[in-house]
């Protein structure tokens, strides 16, 4: 708990979930590698160093006082553990250099990752345990888990995968199944570490594939993954980047308890469409507002989000629309939290409207 708040994040979530009084709405600027800036580390130092990753994420939580810690460096950890080649720039977020395989014939050579031995997974698990040990009583610590379809795209390359969806759907299912088996094993290890898996399936966005293709290649695998996690009594947050309006219902059908919505989608629309089924999380633009905007613009954007969705039947978590860029200014992250604190609870939406339309 930071000096500004009256409740710990865990207390706040529990009370909020029961409809009881809280000091403010939950707020999650999705801090990823920006945490390196808190402890004076370089982003590539996180590679193979669970202790540092935990230290940085805990320090960032303490610095800003937000409501969820997410152990995350990039979306490629599971694909890397299955053979994809990831490039680690010295001080920027890693990116995919080369998929694990290039043709359908090579699928047979792939094995689901072992989370305790392969790639960076053991180090991420170590970071999760350490963060839980340090602050797990007061704040939920989540472990980033990449969805099967997205991992499949990193295994064979995105363009190859999306062509195969139409030319050889069986091969895509084979890849998604392999990715799912790896994801299930990793999810189990994350849960065993005392953490909650937090799901991202970036490539399922309708910016890339159609709702029908999501239904065939994304949703079934996500559903099995979510079911597995919910069976261990953890509520799952599902994030899909970019446009998602046409698949919100299907995202809910996976069993996820919370949808994290990108700034390419609209919170008011999401509330109207699926707000009685899921909590919503979002959606201040990570690039245009959080990275490039001023604190005043951040505050205005927060007020707009709250105005749109504070009365969402299943609740709202004020958040960035996606992970924050590494160089997001601290004062903008502070501004997000401060704006939520100023708004307080219960929310008086009439004041908000004046504030952000002014």
């Amino acid at each position, binding site marked *: 708990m930071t000096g500004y708040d009256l409740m710990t994040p865990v207390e706040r979530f529990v009370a909020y979930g029961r409809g009881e009084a809280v000091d403010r709405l939950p707020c999650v600027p999705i801090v990823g590698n920006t945490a390196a800036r808190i402890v004076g580390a370089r982003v590539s130092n996180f590679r193979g160093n669970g202790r540092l990753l935990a230290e940085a994420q805990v320090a960032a939580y303490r610095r800003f006082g937000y409501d969820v810690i997410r152990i995350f460096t990039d979306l490629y950890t599971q694909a890397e553990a299955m053979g994809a080649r990831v*490039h680690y*720039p010295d001080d*920027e*977020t890693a*990116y*995919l*250099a080369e998929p694990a395989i290039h043709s359908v014939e090579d699928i047979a050579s792939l094995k689901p990752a072992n989370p305790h031995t392969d790639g960076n997974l053991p180090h991420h698990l170590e970071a999760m345990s350490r963060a839980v040990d340090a602050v797990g009583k007061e704040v939920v610590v989540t472990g980033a888990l990449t969805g099967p379809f997205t991992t499949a795209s990193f295994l064979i390359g*995105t*363009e190859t995968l*999306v*062509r195969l*969806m*139409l*030319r050889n759907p069986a091969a895509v299912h084979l890849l998604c199944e392999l990715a799912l088996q790896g994801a299930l094993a990793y999810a189990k290890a994350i849960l065993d570490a005392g953490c909650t898996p937090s799901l991202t399936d970036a490539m399922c966005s*309708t*910016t*890339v*594939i*159609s709702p029908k*293709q999501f239904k065939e290649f994304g949703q079934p695998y996500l559903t099995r993954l979510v079911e597995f996690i919910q069976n261990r009594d953890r509520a799952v947050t599902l994030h899909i*980047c*970019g446009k998602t309006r*046409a698949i919100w219902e299907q995202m809910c059908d996976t069993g996820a308890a919370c949808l994290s919505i990108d700034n390419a989608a609209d919170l008011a629309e999401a509330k109207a469409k699926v707000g009685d089924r899921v909590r919503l999380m979002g959606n201040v633009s*990570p*690039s*245009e507002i959080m*990275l*490039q905007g001023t604190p005043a613009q951040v505050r205005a954007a927060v007020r707009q989000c709250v105005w749109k969705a504070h009365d969402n039947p299943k609740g709202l978590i004020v958040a960035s629309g996606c992970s924050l*860029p*590494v*160089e997001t200014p601290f004062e903008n992250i502070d501004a997000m939290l401060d704006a939520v604190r100023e708004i307080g609870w219960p929310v008086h939406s009439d004041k908000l409207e004046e504030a952000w339309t002014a």
Partner: protein
Amino acid sequence: MPLNEDELFKALSDAVVGMDEDTAGQLATEAVDRGIDAYTAIERGLVDGMGRAGELFESEEYFIPELLLCSDAMYRGLDILRPHLKVEDASQRRFKVVIGVVEGDTHDIGKNLVKIMLEASGFDIVDLGRDIPPQRFVDTAVAENADIIALSTLMTTTMDAMAEVVERLQTTNLRERFKVIVGGGPISKAFADRIHADGYANSAPNAVKLVKLLAGVPA
């Protein structure tokens, strides 16, 4: 009964929209065998089909997978028809775009879509690929005598590299020679304005409209 010319162009266009590479190839070969003008077959067949595919993409009936397969069919036909273009059609000076993903980023699906749609709209494209240092955009644009430099990124970490391309053009007094356009997930109109780019588009079809505008081609 053999198709008349109009029917053949329509069938070519349909093969592209229908993502049917083999039929596009067969029809292109038939056009060549029958001595049908290659330029017309490309324009009224393949390019027309890709235009329709782009419209379906804009109306969200088609998504990236469909658009890629349409382009596979278009390129199959182009490979067959292009060698048969009349000299004046083949050597006609066309508006030229140098395109690539800036250094530090390897996400290139967005760039590839823009490239495909521009090519289908009759522009000359020099595709540098991904993870391209700023100076290479400048050098290539000069060497190719290009009209436009198109920069793409999905990552915020690499946005500064876009500004650097513009700056390098300025410091070498080349800024007036090329239009610079930018796009990709984290990019906005405000960012484009701030780095003094000449344009921003938020989708592949809009990138085509932007290039047409800059080229003075009726949309």
